[in-house]
């Protein structure tokens, strides 16, 4: 509260670095007060949002099929967030402001079909489809606002104009065809990357630039490197009930799109404990046998150069730019699409007179269910659904040693009097 005023702070751990070495403003018995890093805003207005939602439910063929359709469009304006401000202008680093205007559009479709509804056999098949498109329309003059208190430097969630909320920003290696111009080696000469990419022949747009040593160079351009929001999600379920006693059911979840920063892999590469570091006994070359899924095309003077020949070469790479402390986070961005066999269950109802006689219950339901039985995905980490901060976190798509969803088999017995 009190986000409209600017106050002084006692400056607890106010000075130092992100490595955790901090001192207080107060030292050696001498008290201190400093201007707060988060300043108030006297012109705050309430947030507003407007939502249009249309839906329809249809039943067909004497309720053997039903279809649900929903379309929504929500627009929020004057969203209050603590935005970064120019320290040189204001003497602070953050300020509350009516800074964002966002929209969310989406459709939800559900279809259920019951092909057989006889006395002894009941079969139902259902499918759902959902698609949400978020868009950041304006940010009070800023191009993007990072969620600095969440996630990781180098793969930081953000609201960026023209993208869905939550896209990750960071650095990539220099790519050809992006018109990049910067000083690669601090020699005080600005290098034209596209011109260098031509060294050794023409290049494909997006090809990874390789220097004469066969290694990529870090592009200092801060850019959007991943969108953790899925293109769409789908769910399929089916159940068959036989003789009113035996029920078989299954549930499959599908997510198309939704990129993930595999920070776990980056850290394990740094420590040399990831299975991919077993490549250390081989020679390695970009575009040929290393990171070809993320950087299929290469260009530049090093396009045919073997970059890694000894285990030490590999160690230097993984502990440096090729691991978690490297600057390029884009190399750890992977497609998080998946198909999951979410659940299969079988249940049977025992209602024989013997049950009543022996146990004193009218019926007993026996159910065995397996959850998260299998995942089909190209994602290299443990679980593309995992996220560091949980669902309430603004930043999604951060995989950093979080637990994957558990696979479980559940046996349950229900006794009904």
């Amino acid at each position, binding site marked *: 509260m009190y986000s409209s005023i600017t106050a002084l702070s006692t400056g607890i751990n106010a000075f130092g*670095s992100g490595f955790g070495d901090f001192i207080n403003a107060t030292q050696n018995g001498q008290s201190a007060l400093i201007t707060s890093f988060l300043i108030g805003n006297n012109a705050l207005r309430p947030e507003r949002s407007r939502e249009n939602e249309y839906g329809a439910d249809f039943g067909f063929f004497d309720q053997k099929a039903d279809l649900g359709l929903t379309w929504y469009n929500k627009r929020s304006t004057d969203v209050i967030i603590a935005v970064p401000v120019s320290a040189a202008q204001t003497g602070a680093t953050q300020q509350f402001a009516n800074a964002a205007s966002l929209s969310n559009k989406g459709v939800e479709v559900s279809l259920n079909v019951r092909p057989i509804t006889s006395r002894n056999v009941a079969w139902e098949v259902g499918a759902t489809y959902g698609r949400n498109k978020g868009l950041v329309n304006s940010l009070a003059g800023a191009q993007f606002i990072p969620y600095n208190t969440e996630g990781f430097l180098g793969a930081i969630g953000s609201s960026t104009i023209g993208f869905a909320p939550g896209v990750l920003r960071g650095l990539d290696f220099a790519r050809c065809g992006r018109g990049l111009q910067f000083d690669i080696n601090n020699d005080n000469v600005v290098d034209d990357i596209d011109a260098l990419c031509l060294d050794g022949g023409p290049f494909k747009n997006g090809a990874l630039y390789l220097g004469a040593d066969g290694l990529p160079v870090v592009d200092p351009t801060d850019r959007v490197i991943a969108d953790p929001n899925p293109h769409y999600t789908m769910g399929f379920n089916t159940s068959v009930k036989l003789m009113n006693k035996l029920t078989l059911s299954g549930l499959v979840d599908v997510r198309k799109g939704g990129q993930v920063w595999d920070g776990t892999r980056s850290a394990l590469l740094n420590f040399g404990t990831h299975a991919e570091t077993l490549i250390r006994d081989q020679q390695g070359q970009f575009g040929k046998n290393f990171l070809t899924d993320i950087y299929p095309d290469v260009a530049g003077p090093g396009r045919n150069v073997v970059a890694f020949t000894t285990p030490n070469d590999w160690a230097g790479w993984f502990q440096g730019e090729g691991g978690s402390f490297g600057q390029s986070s884009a190399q750890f961005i992977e497609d998080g699409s998946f198909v999951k066999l979410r659940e299969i269950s079988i249940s049977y109802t025992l209602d024989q007179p013997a049950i009543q006689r022996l146990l004193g219950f009218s019926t007993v339901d026996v159910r065995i269910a397996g959850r998260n039985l299998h995942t089909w995905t190209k994602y290299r980490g443990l679980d593309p659904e995992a996220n560091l901060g949980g669902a309430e976190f603004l930043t999604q798509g951060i995989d950093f040693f979080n637990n994957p969803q558990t696979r479980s088999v559940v046996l349950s017995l229900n006794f009904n009097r």
Partner: protein
Amino acid sequence: MLHVTKLRRLAPLAVLALLGMAACKDFLTAGETQVDPNRPTQAANRLIFTGIQSNIWSQLGSDPVRVSGIWAGQFNGTQGQYFTVNNYGVSEQTTNGFHASLYAGGGLVDIRKLQAASIAQTDTLMLGVAQVQEAILIGTGADMFGDLVYSHALTGEANPALDKQMDVYDALTETLLVQALANLSVTRGGTNIGPGAADLAYGGDPAAWRRLAHTVRARIYMHEGEVRGASAYAKALAEARLGLTSNAQDFVAVYSGASLSEANFFFQFDQVQRFGYLVPNLSFVDTLQTRNDPRLDDYFVEDASFCGAEFCFSEARDAPDFTQPLITSNQNLLVWAEAAYRTGNILEAQTQYNAERAMSGVPANGLTLVGDPLLAAILGEKYIVNFQTIEAWNDYKRTCYPNVTPNVAGVKIPARFLYDTGERQTNTSIPPAQDQPTRNQNDPPNTVSDGQGTLACIGQ
């Protein structure tokens, strides 16, 4: 008729509704929301002074010193982010927020508050002290980032423009520090009380602050030397003669060590937070060993249990209550010596060079050295006394002495920090990382290593 009656009955309700709307309009900004009983909005001068003092300790003692020390060849970054820094990977994250600290709490915003309050209370000494604090902070910022928002800083104008680095230096040496020296010359008494006991380096002693002001001024003139040549060195010489000359006069950070939040930054980093990230550069250790230099044992210890490397920072320096020298008399004497050499005052150069050696417990080198060997001797001595300060890197950038071999073949040593992300995205005057210059205005690449004849400079 019926309708009219109904409307009349509703009229009072409508008025109430309108009143309600009017009240709602400023419900976020009116009355109690403007006064937070738990947070003050005004502070006494000494409280503000102490906050600035802590920020300066951090700016001159925390991450910028470690990173620039790696680049100057005094430290090695062996793990984590420092491994990247060691390989000259520089990004907008490398500043670690230190650009913002120039302006935000404990920085220029509070310095300006302190100056305004000092003027209002006719505390001229406090005003002078705050002006020296400003010169230290902004001068260090200009060393790191080059062009800096300064004349437009905190004016409230959107996207404040950058001043050229040399213009920032000039504003500090020709205006701010001149005023500071005048203000610090006013006799103490009455309302004119200064920081007193809150000043943990000098106890509010105006003479001490005057010497520091001269030393800071000399230091900035030295930073201009590569571009402005003899005229800058002559000014540096004049100022250094009035600067710090004994260790009792050093500007230091005094850590109580009573808690982590009051502990020396090197201790916190090396021994508490990031064990083994930062270790001595062995070629620097070699230099001290070859010279049989007594500072070897002051700086380092041959005990792997301290950092995991062959040599580690000494127990005394990695202690929570180690008093960290920030701007020292040793540095000033050698600025004096170098400036004297650069302006042809050879005897004065030899004298101050030997005076500093005597202070450091190193035998005098007599008055025999002249020419390049004398310059190399001064710069070599300076490299040692600049240990754990940003001056090691500043001097290297200016002189290319010692002729450091870059850690990565084919790459030159970083010569500036990138502005941090927060400032770049909120101030369109700050260019994006890829468009920022490689070197600062005061620092064209050196072709030769100073004091070594025609020996080509490797790292620039």
